[in-house]
């Protein structure tokens, strides 16, 4: 097992390097002079040159990349924002990443619960109204832009739940973890906790709908497969009532493909969060990337996209490892 883990980790390193290099080169070619963004439009040419030299912007791009990665790996340093003057980018990302992860996790839990529920319902009542309704919902789910769905939810329920943000602006508490639900509890403020929860409902639901549809489809088809298999028929023949068959035997076996889907889903959710956050004014990575793009704060874009991609690669690695625990065949199979 340790050997397998090591092998997987080592294999991930070139991938991480390649991903970071692609992000670096792309974001560095964003149009607009970063020095302009740093100094404003009224700086003198001498000052511009000096800044360019100081930030190494006159060096070859691979050298710039090496300097950047050294800072990131040794000091967790992502540079200083050009637009938010003198602000270390890592500081803002440390604050915003938890907000995005909180939203993503909430959506994930919601999508797994809902998806499995609808999938089982559709499989057990195959051919019924429920079956068709959930399949139709799944089909529509994958055809709708996630931010439009968010908009529809806001239109329908926004008045009841929230007007955006993840916490009331007038709440003034310490934020040790960055997770609104955790921090409000740590601060011993149940009222604020409820406020945070209330604001989480709609964005999480909007983000969860499409993966929920995908999970429902997978659950249904793998349930149908398992329900038709020999041992379930045997179980039925042995006189077990159908509920026990469904819950104990079929569902457990159907869960394996669902677990695989979760890793893929995480990437989808991260991307979806970037789009959905804007609609719900969520103070996470998505709104950060958006404002950085429109400000052409390329170090910020670079840092934010890079961190999200690294999180994504890491989660996929984690899913692989978990999967290897669940299914020993992978561990000992050909590399």
């Amino acid at each position, binding site marked *: 097992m340790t050997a397998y883990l090591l092998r997987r980790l080592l294999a991930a390193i*070139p991938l991480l390097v390649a*991903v970071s290099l692609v992000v670096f080169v792309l974001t560095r070619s964003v149009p607009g002079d970063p020095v302009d963004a740093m100094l404003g439009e009224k700086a003198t040419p001498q000052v511009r040159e000096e800044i360019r030299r100081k930030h190494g912007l006159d060096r070859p791009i691979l050298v710039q990349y090496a300097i950047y990665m050294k800072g990131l790996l040794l000091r967790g340093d992502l540079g200083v924002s050009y637009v938010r003057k003198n602000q270390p980018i890592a500081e803002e990302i440390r604050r915003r990443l938890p907000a995005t992860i909180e939203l993503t996790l909430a959506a994930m839990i919601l999508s797994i619960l809902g998806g499995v529920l609808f999938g089982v319902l559709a499989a057990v009542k195959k051919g019924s109204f429920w079956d068709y309704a959930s399949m139709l919902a799944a089909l529509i789910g994958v055809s709708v832009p996630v931010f*439009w769905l968010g908009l529809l939810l806001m239109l329908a329920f926004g008045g009841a739940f929230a007007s955006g943000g993840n916490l009331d602006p007038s709440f003034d508490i310490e934020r040790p973890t960055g997770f609104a639900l955790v921090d409000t509890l740590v601060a011993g403020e149940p009222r604020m906790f409820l406020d945070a929860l209330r604001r989480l409902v709609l964005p999480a639901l909007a983000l969860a709908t499409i993966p929920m549809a995908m999970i429902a489809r997978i659950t249904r088809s793998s349930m149908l497969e398992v329900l038709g298999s020999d041992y379930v028929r045997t179980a039925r023949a042995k006189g077990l009532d159908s509920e026990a068959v469904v819950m104990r035997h079929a569902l457990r076996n159907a869960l394996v493909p669902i677990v695989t889907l979760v890793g893929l889903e995480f*990437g989808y959710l991260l991307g979806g969060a970037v789009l959905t956050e804007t609609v719900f004014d969520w103070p996470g990575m998505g709104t950060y990337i958006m404002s950085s793009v429109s400000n052409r704060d390329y170090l910020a*874009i670079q840092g934010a*996209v890079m961190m999200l991609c690294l999180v*994504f690669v890491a989660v996929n690695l984690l899913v692989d490892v978990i999967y290897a625990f669940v299914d020993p065949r992978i561990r000992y199979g050909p590399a």
Partner: protein
Amino acid sequence: MDRRKLRVLLRHRTAMLGLALLVVIAALAVAVRWVSPHDPDEMSAASRELGPSASYWFGTDNSGRDIFTRLWVGARVSLLIGVASVVFSIAIGVPLGAVAGYAGGRTDMLLSRLVDLLLSFPGILLAICIAAAMGTGLRTVVIAVGVVGIPQFARQARASVLQLRELEFVAASRALGAGHARILFLDILPNALGPLIVLATLGVGGAILTAAGLSFLGLGVETGTPEWGAMLHDGYGYWRRSAGLALFSGLAISTTVLAFNLFGDGLRDALDPRSTRG
């Protein structure tokens, strides 16, 4: 497509529904300038933000323009983006995957790693990076969305070629002295078209969604081009006051993507019956 496959497709009710929707959308996109009495660009304060009525079927936007007319003028741009992006993905992805599968060994490993690399990005983030680097415009959107679609075509092409290259007709062709390029592009690929066509159809829907996401974030086409994502972006700016533009442009995107998905699923059942429908 042989007769049997065509029959399966024609009997596929949801696929035909998808096709019918696509035909209607395309027809409206082509005919709107003759059918509609409204100018898609002319602004007027007097007709601003009206609800749906007999003369403005979907109401008007905040510049007093007919939403219905602009939607179908915009359909051309959006469909063009969807199709062009998929063409871009195919043009790069299929040769990439086909060569990888055919050559095998080191080449395969190298090219597959390249595809893996693209898959290591959440799609929309990659599109955002490319679009931000290239600046706004139609070309940017097509390339940004197209790059995101490359891996799926590359993977499909590779899988098909791997499967087909060991078959007898390939060996026969090789025995007759055909070169690698000839074997790959004239013998193998034509036989791998089915799954690729399915993927392309579904891909147009996906591309329209990604493009809409980019436009929604303000990284889309030039100012004043009616395009669905951009219209949704504009409508999002004032949906609390007047929801018409946001609702109808989102509806247009969703319906079109749904139509491509329905038709694509039907195509899959007809052309590629082995794959599961999930």
